[in-house]
Structures are given as structure tokens and as C-alpha cells.
């Protein structure tokens, strides 16, 4: 473990460089360049807010403000965006870098770290815009917003663990990647991101606790829509699951990283 940290430190230049390069490469040959990295999420937020609050006049049951549903939607969709970006990139992580893995000897653990960092970088742009929007419309939740930091951290750890498991397995069984793509779509609709929990039939509700993402998304919604502190105790199962997935992911990675190169 310490040797792994030490090699990460030694390669910090490469890690930061990769994140930077990845970020730049997206808009490399465009005139507006980095501008697009702001315009894209901005457009998304505008769609969710203007369309839903002004055009469709969608209302959240129990909350009366104009932007309530838009905020509800954004707090779920934007964070889900981080989750799904990390997942899709993790599952193809080793396949996409096959050439590098086969030809150059470097600490392989760098690759997932780069994925995490560049996803977080993209997310930070979106969330900054979202916070601006909250400030502009007078919906800023105040001090409670601090609570979103440990929850995002938990979400990242959970996604890292799951992503690592899926990423390693996908090298040996390509079906895993295909399946995970489909599974993510179902998962999105099985989580109350777009719709409120209250519209679900009573019979289904107990099963929601089996979905580890529900408590995370609910926490964001509590913070931004209700402007309240989340229910910390509800997060414990997801927290332990996240730890278990990280351990499993590391275990799979360590045991199969050598064999992986032969498979690519």
C-alpha cells in the first residue's frame, strides 16, 4: 500500500498532466476552446430549469416555489452524471489504454486515478454553475451545502470501487461492459432522480433501500430542495458497501493486473 502511494506520488506529474491533457483534448480544435466546457453544462441546466419551471410549470408535490422541481432535478441529474461518467469510463479503462499497458511499464493504478480526477474536474464546473444558479434565484441553501462534500466523497469512493470491479472484470469477460451499460440505464430510472419517491406505489418502497444510490441522491435533494441536513444514519449501508467494493476492486486489480496485459 505504501509503495503504491509512493509510486503515485512519483508519477504525480503524469497524473496531473493526463487530467489536463484529457480536459484540453476535448476542445482542442474548436474556436471557443474551453468555453465549451462551460457552455455544455450551462445548456443542460437551462434546459432543466427554464423548460421545466417556466414552460411545463412542473411542480414538486409539497413544495411551492417556482424552481423547486428544477432544483430537485438538477441536484439528482448532475450528481448522477458524475456517477455515470465515472462508471462508463471505468468499465473501458483498461481496454482503452491497452496499447499503453502492453508497451510501457508504469504503475497501473494511475489509470483509475486519472479517471476519477478528470470526472471530478468536469463535475466541479457543472456544480459551480449550479451554485451560481441557486444564488441568482435566491435558492442557495446556506450552511447545509457543506454536507454535500462528504456525500460527494462517499459517492466517489462507491463509484471507484464499483468501477474498478467492473473495469477489471470487463477485460476478461467483455459481456460485463455491455451489461453494465444497460444496467446503468435501468438503475437511473429505478432511482428517484427525475420523479419524487412519493409517487411510487407503497409496495415498491421497501425495495428502494436495496439501491445504494437512492440514499445518496436523496441526500442531495434534501440539501438543495429542502435546505436541510441529510439523514446521516441512512448512509451507513452505502458507506460499508463502498468500502467493500473498494477492497474487492483492489483485490481483483492486484491479482489480475499481470494477467490483464496478456488478455488485451
Amino acid at each position, binding site marked *: 500500500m505504501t509503495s503504491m502511494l509512493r509510486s503515485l506520488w512519483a*508519477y504525480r506529474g*503524469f497524473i496531473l*498532466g493526463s487530467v489536463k*491533457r484529457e480536459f484540453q483534448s476535448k476542445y482542442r480544435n474548436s474556436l471557443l476552446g474551453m468555453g465549451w466546457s462551460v457552455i455544455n453544462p450551462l445548456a443542460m441546466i437551462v434546459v432543466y430549469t427554464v423548460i421545466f419551471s417556466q414552460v411545463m410549470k412542473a411542480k414538486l408535490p409539497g413544495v411551492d416555489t417556482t424552481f423547486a422541481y428544477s432544483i430537485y432535478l438538477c441536484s439528482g441529474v448532475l450528481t448522477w452524471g458524475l456517477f455515470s461518467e465515472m462508471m462508463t469510463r471505468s468499465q473501458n479503462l483498461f481496454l482503452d489504454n491497452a496499447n*499503453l499497458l502492453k508497451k510501457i511499464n508504469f504503475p497501473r493504478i494511475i489509470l483509475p486515478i486519472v479517471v476519477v480526477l478528470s470526472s471530478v474536474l468536469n463535475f466541479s464546473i457543472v456544480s459551480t454553475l449550479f451554485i451560481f444558479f441557486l444564488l441568482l434565484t435566491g435558492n442557495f441553501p446556506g450552511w447545509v451545502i457543506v454536507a454535500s462534500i462528504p456525500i460527494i466523497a462517499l459517492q466517489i469512493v462507491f463509484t471507484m470501487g464499483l468501477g474498478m470491479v467492473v473495469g477489471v472484470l470487463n477485460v476478461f469477460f467483455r459481456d460485463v461492459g455491455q451489461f453494465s451499460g444497460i444496467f446503468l440505464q435501468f438503475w437511473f430510472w429505478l432511482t428517484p432522480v427525475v420523479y419524487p419517491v412519493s409517487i411510487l406505489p407503497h409496495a415498491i418502497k421497501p425495495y428502494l433501500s436495496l439501491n445504494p444510490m437512492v440514499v445518496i441522491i436523496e441526500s442531495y435533494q434534501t440539501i438543495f430542495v429542502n435546505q436541510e441536513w441529510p439523514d446521516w444514519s441512512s448512509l451507513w449501508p452505502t458507506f460499508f458497501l463502498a468500502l467493500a467494493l473498494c477492497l474487492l476492486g483492489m483485490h481483483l486489480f492486484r491479482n489480475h493486473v*499481470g494477467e490483464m496485459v496478456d488478455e488485451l
Partner: protein
Amino acid sequence: MGTITVSELGKAYKQYPNRWSRLIEWLKSGRVKRHQLKWVLQDISFTVKAGEAVGIIGINGAGKSTLLKLITGTTRPTTGSVHMTGRVAALLELGMGFHPDFTGRQNAFMSAQLMGISSDEIMRQMPEIEAFAEIGEYIDQPVRVYSSGMQMRLAFSVATAMRPEILIVDEALSVGDAYFQHKSFDRIRQFQKAGTTLLIVSHDKAAIQSICDQAILLKAGRLVMQGKPEAVMDYYNAISAAHQQQEIGQFILANGSIQTVSGNRQASIESALLTDTSDQKIEILEVGSTVRLVVEAWALSDLPELVLGFMIKDRLGQPVFGTNSHHCRQPLAQIKKGKRIRYVFEFNANIGPGHYTIALALHTKDTHLENNYEWRDQALLFEVVNNQQDEFVGTAWLKPSLKIYL
């Protein structure tokens, strides 16, 4: 620093009878074995001392590249281990990981970082990398507009910017133009002089023989011979020629080298020898002496035309001088079957000291391409010595005179 110890190294790939077998094996976590091992390398042990240069040779598929990958650590060994001391640089796949949309400078930076070199160090080396690559203003252009040679130049310059204790070179080196090949080879030689240990895979005999102290021959994943480069090379030639015997005759000469004979056998070379001006057979001659090449040819069928050519080649097989009876304006026409012809070429051996071979060919017109009766490589071997002239180097003797004006 700079030693390589390879002990009982082996590499096997797992082969599964079908896709489900691996899943079954994983699910039963190692209690059942459904795969077979396909060994590509077995029982490889050798050590390379600091500052030594070792060449690895073998036919395609013998396991050379796998061995290098195991040594550099990109692939993990199935058995055995590799132990190295000192910083290692590998020139395996030059330009790996270059991103086409980024400039040469940015890519150079990234690939140096990938080798674990710190940013400060790269900054310091950058002017030197630029100067060595000699790609001018392209350094600030995106790599996608580079020619493959330019990419190679940049990649080589980055990989060798700092002298490593161990340098591992794959055949990749033979890309690029002659000028840069020469330049990169010079750099490798400099590293060697400064004490870098070299491990080289190459098919270039001359390169292996001129750089390496030792050679290792791999055959079907096993180390079959290790020793002086010349000896290993000769053995390699012998085994790699073994399967060609049906088409082309090959004979191992007294000195261990191999003579190749090809042709349609409508005429043959009966004898060939070098003599001095008094017709005494010679094998060692003085620089500048007059010698005769006497060749007897035999027409095995009726021939419309007959030309005899000879080519003197140096130790590395490079042509030194060659001509034929057509160029000497004496082609023979309408030869009857069974006719024996004696050719005598006379020339001054204005060539430098060293070992040479003579190849002979019987054909029509000015080359053997159209009608090759017989082509005989290494028909004669001779040595040139310099006892009478002032010392000089090279294969040509230009008989200089010198005047100095003060």
C-alpha cells in the same frame, strides 16, 4: 548499477477451450483448472554485467520481444524472475502514447513523465531533446502533422534524453532515415562508453557484431546458445538456413561460413582461384599487388550467350568492386554444350587490409536477373594485408601523395 539478472524465466499464456471455461474457473476460485498453458518462453537464465552489451537474436516468433517485455516489466513472468539495478530506459515501441492533437513539445513532456522523470528534470532536458530531434519548428505543431520519421526522431530523443544505467533496444530502431539512424546509433555507442548496459534485439548482423560483447540465441522460446557474437551468429545462420536446403544449395565452408549457390544449372563454375602474376595460387595478398582471378566455366547445355561476373565483398557483405565480361566488352555468344571456358581477370588489389569474399555468377546480358545460370556466393575468400604501404584505414586504397606548403 546496471546489472541484469534473469533467472529461470518463463512465460505462458492461458488458453481456454471456450469462453465459459474461464468463468467456471473464476467462480470456483482456482479449485478447478480448465486452461492449458501455452509456453512462449521457458528456462531463460543469463546475467548481464554492468557496462556489457548483449544482443538477442532469433527468428520471428522465437520469443525475443516477449523476453524484452518481461525484462522491462510490461508483462509479468509465469515462472522465474528478473532483477535489475539502476535506471532503465526501453526503446520498444517508439512514440507510444503520443496524442495526435497535442504538440510535439507537450507530447515529449508527457512521455517523459510516463517514464517517471520529474517535471523539473524534463524542463532542463527540453532544449537538448529539441536539438537532438532536429525537427525544427514542428516541435510546436500537433503530432498529427508529423511524418512517421519525425515522430520517431522525437520519441527517440525523449527516451534517450538522460543516460540510463540500462538501455533496452528493440528493432524499432531501424526506422527513420539513414542520417538519424546513424545519429541514434552514435548516441547508443556514447552511452555504452559511459558505462550503460545494453540489451539489443536486432536482425542486423553488423550491428550486433560491432556493438555487442555477447549474444544470446533464442529458438522456440528457449535459450539455445550464448557466447561471442560471431559464433552465435554463425550458428544462427546455420539453423535458419536449414529449412531452405531444397531450393538453394548451401555448404558450410572450412571457416564455418556458408556458401549459397543458386541458378538454373545450364552452366556451372568448375573452379575458381586467385593467383599472383606468376600463376601461383594465393589467399593472402599485399595492398596494391597485381592479382589474377582465374575461373573455369562449363556449359551444361547450348547457350545463346555467356557472361561471367565477379563481386568482391568486404567482411560485412558490402560490395567493394564488381564487374563482368559484358562490361569488359567480351561477352561470348553461341556456346555449344560441353564447352569449357577459362576466364582470367587481372587487376590491382587497391583495397584495404581485411577479409574479403568473391561471389561469382554466370548469366546473360549485364546482370544475372534475366538468365541466371549459376550464382555462387563466397566462391573465394582472401585476406589483404598491408606490409609495404603506409598505414591507412578503409576498404579502398587511393595511393595518396602529400605535399605540405608552409
